[in-house]
């Protein structure tokens, strides 16, 4: 009979009821308020970090075989980078940078790789006498810190040149040559060929965690809403009326769309105030931390492309999981029985989430790459890869194509399993029965 029933308008009628049923509930309102509050607190985290950061000092190692040159570099860099802002009270202000002389370059490299220092300056002199300074850190050449150090390098070059001027009039004056300054950025992340600076990388990592956690929550919680909704209709026996009024395909689609829309509404209710906090973060930071506090706190790197990617992976990820959750819900007679049956699916989602967290840490191993193409992990892992590393557009397209194809297959199987399960009463739910039905579907 399903073949004769078009999807609309019944799927829409069911979706509307599901949507209203969800959003009218007090639990929905309470959870939306709590989650929005939490999300705004998370969005304020960089301000808090910056506040904490103000209490700490960034360390930069200076490595040179020439002791005079090293001392000169420390002096100039200290005067350039540790300049007190004119509107900050001198009694409370403390230097944000400390420059340490380190004799062993390897020791400095080790400290840099472990994060004990922010960067290192390798200071040397070429055969012609020109000062050469290499700044190694996670900062991009365009970062404000690198540019201040370039300015300091110029000052070092001037001082060095003047120190080498002959004290008697016997010799000629060597022509002034500016110090050569180079920034070597470690762990380079790019997007569309553009190198991301350290702040952007950190920001992306932070946003990545937020997005992946949100995706995980929405997939599992909203998916369980779908399963619970189906199981409730069975336990209240209203399902028998429903299946005589609408086809399983209409019911399944309506339920997934309606609950998905309720989830999306909640997501927007959480995301909009959070994004407003992000947008006005510099002002909030300025108010809380004073005029200099806004520096370096804003969340950058939240490009429209990433927001679109999140929307696409949210939509596809939720649809995939919701279809499976719905068919699972049809196999239990009471909502209480869902916990057992849905556990394997929740574990799959958790595996995807954990892989995504590993990917956010910068891991680019083969299995992370593979997982970003394989549903049901791909929504989490590809999103994470997009946030923190360079991903070719073709890879994203292939990942989405595989996900869409999987959803199409799962939709057919889930629809048949749902049809088989909705009138199944009085039998003990079990994963084996579910798999048996899946094979038959």
């Amino acid at each position: 009979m399903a073949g004769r029933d078009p999807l609309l308008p019944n799927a829409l009628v069911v979706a509307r009821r599901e949507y209203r049923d969800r959003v009218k509930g007090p639990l929905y309102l309470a959870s939306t308020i709590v989650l929005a509050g939490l999300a705004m607190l998370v969005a304020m985290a960089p301000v808090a970090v910056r506040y904490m950061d103000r209490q700490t000092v960034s360390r930069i190692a200076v490595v040179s075989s020439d002791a005079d040159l090293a001392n000169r570099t420390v002096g100039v860099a200290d005067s350039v980078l540790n300049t007190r802002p004119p509107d900050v009270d001198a009694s409370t202000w403390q230097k944000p940078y400390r420059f340490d002389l380190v004799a062993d370059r390897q020791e400095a490299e080790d400290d840099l790789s472990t994060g004990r220092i922010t960067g290192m300056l390798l200071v040397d002199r070429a055969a012609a006498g020109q000062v050469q300074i290499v700044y190694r850190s996670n900062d991009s050449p365009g970062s404000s810190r690198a540019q201040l150090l370039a300015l300091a390098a110029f000052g070092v070059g001037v001082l060095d040149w003047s120190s080498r001027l002959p004290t008697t009039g016997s010799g000629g004056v060597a022509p002034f040559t500016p110090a050569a300054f180079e920034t070597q950025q470690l762990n380079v992340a790019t997007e569309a060929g553009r190198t991301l600076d350290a702040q952007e990388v950190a920001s992306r990592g932070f946003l990545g965690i937020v997005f992946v956690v949100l995706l995980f929550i929405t997939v599992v919680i909203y998916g369980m809403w779908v399963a619970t909704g189906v199981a409730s209709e069975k336990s209240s026996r209203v399902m028998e009326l429903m299946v005589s009024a609408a086809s399983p395909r209409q019911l399944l689609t309506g339920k997934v769309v309606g609950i998905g829309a309720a989830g999306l509404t909640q997501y927007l209710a959480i995301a909009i105030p959070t994004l407003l906090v992000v947008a006005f973060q510099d002002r909030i930071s300025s108010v809380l931390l004073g005029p200099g506090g806004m520096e370096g706190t804003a969340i950058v790197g939240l490009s429209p492309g990433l927001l679109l990617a999140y929307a696409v992976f949210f939509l596809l990820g939720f649809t995939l999981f919701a279809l499976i959750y719905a068919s699972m819900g049809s196999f239990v007679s009471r909502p209480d029985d869902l916990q057992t049956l849905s556990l394997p699916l929740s574990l799959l989602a958790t595996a995807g989430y954990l892989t995504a967290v590993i990917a956010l840490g910068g891991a680019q191993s083969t299995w992370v790459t593979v997982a970003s193409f394989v549903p049901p992990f791909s929504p989490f892992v590809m999103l994470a890869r997009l946030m923190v590393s360079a991903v070719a557009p073709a890879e994203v397209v292939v990942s989405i194509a595989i996900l869409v194809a999987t959803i199409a297959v799962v939709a057919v199987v889930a629809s048949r399993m749902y049809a088989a399960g909705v009138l199944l009463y009085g039998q003990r739910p079990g994963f084996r029965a579910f798999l048996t039905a899946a094979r038959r579907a």
Partner: protein
Amino acid sequence: MSLEIDHVTKRFGTTVALDGLAFDVAPGEVFGFLGANGAGKTTTMRICLGILRPDAGEIRWQGRSTHELPRRTWGYLPEERGLYPKMAVLDQLVYFATLYGEPPDRARREAVAWLTRFRIPDYAGRRAEELSKGNQQKVQFIAAILHGPEVLLMDEPFTGLDPVNLILLREAFLELRDRGRTLVFSTHQLESAEAMCESVAIIDRGRLVAGGAIRELKRASGRRSIRLALGGDAMPAWLGELPGVEGARRSPAGIELEVLPGSDPASILAAVLARGATVSNFAVVEPSLEALFIEHVGRPADEDASLAPDRAPSLQAGGVA
């Protein structure tokens, strides 16, 4: 053209739920679909609705197979009552009618009219969980008819109703019949079926054991009984031993004597009088539907059959079509 159940067979795994079941229901009549629990009544209704597919045979309405018919052809009142517990009564009535293609405004007007008729207009805005079982049942009946189905299939519609509501529901049945609707219902309350139906089908273990107009079934059985009242309201033991009498039992109307086929009621009356009894009432009556049911099925209507596929269809059932 009628509702034709044309040699329908349905198996659940190795269990045969319907075994070549065949009977017709004339349009515009109230039809009783009788059988013990697990006889195959609900399975037949689900096949009518397209919820299940038959393994063999076909069900047709007006010459068209069920899978060619729109869903709104049917109205269905399932045996297991169910409504959305937290949803307002009127809202869910409109919701169900909308699924059947009714415009919401018209559905709302009709629903209010039916709620008023069933004396529960004040419950329109209440949640279903706040209603008594009987009132929930009336709401479900309204849900089944709001879209104006041509055929109304009802599984045990009278269960749980008090006498007043029973009368209300019966009146609604007759009104729908007068509007040209075809009503098919199953019930274990055989007196209700006898009072309302022109025809019945009695099935047992998925097979038709008797079917047709009730009057014809009674005549064909050849059975009659005598309703008797004796002075002093006594029931002497010798009544059951009279020639031509198969058995005697008390009934609300007095004493009921089962007459053997071919026996003459006048001879029995003469034999009673010859024993010196005072007869205050004597009537020859046809067998009740319950007696016919027991005769054909061999047990009362509310006794379980060995098979109960309607309550627990297995995975092999294939579920909703």
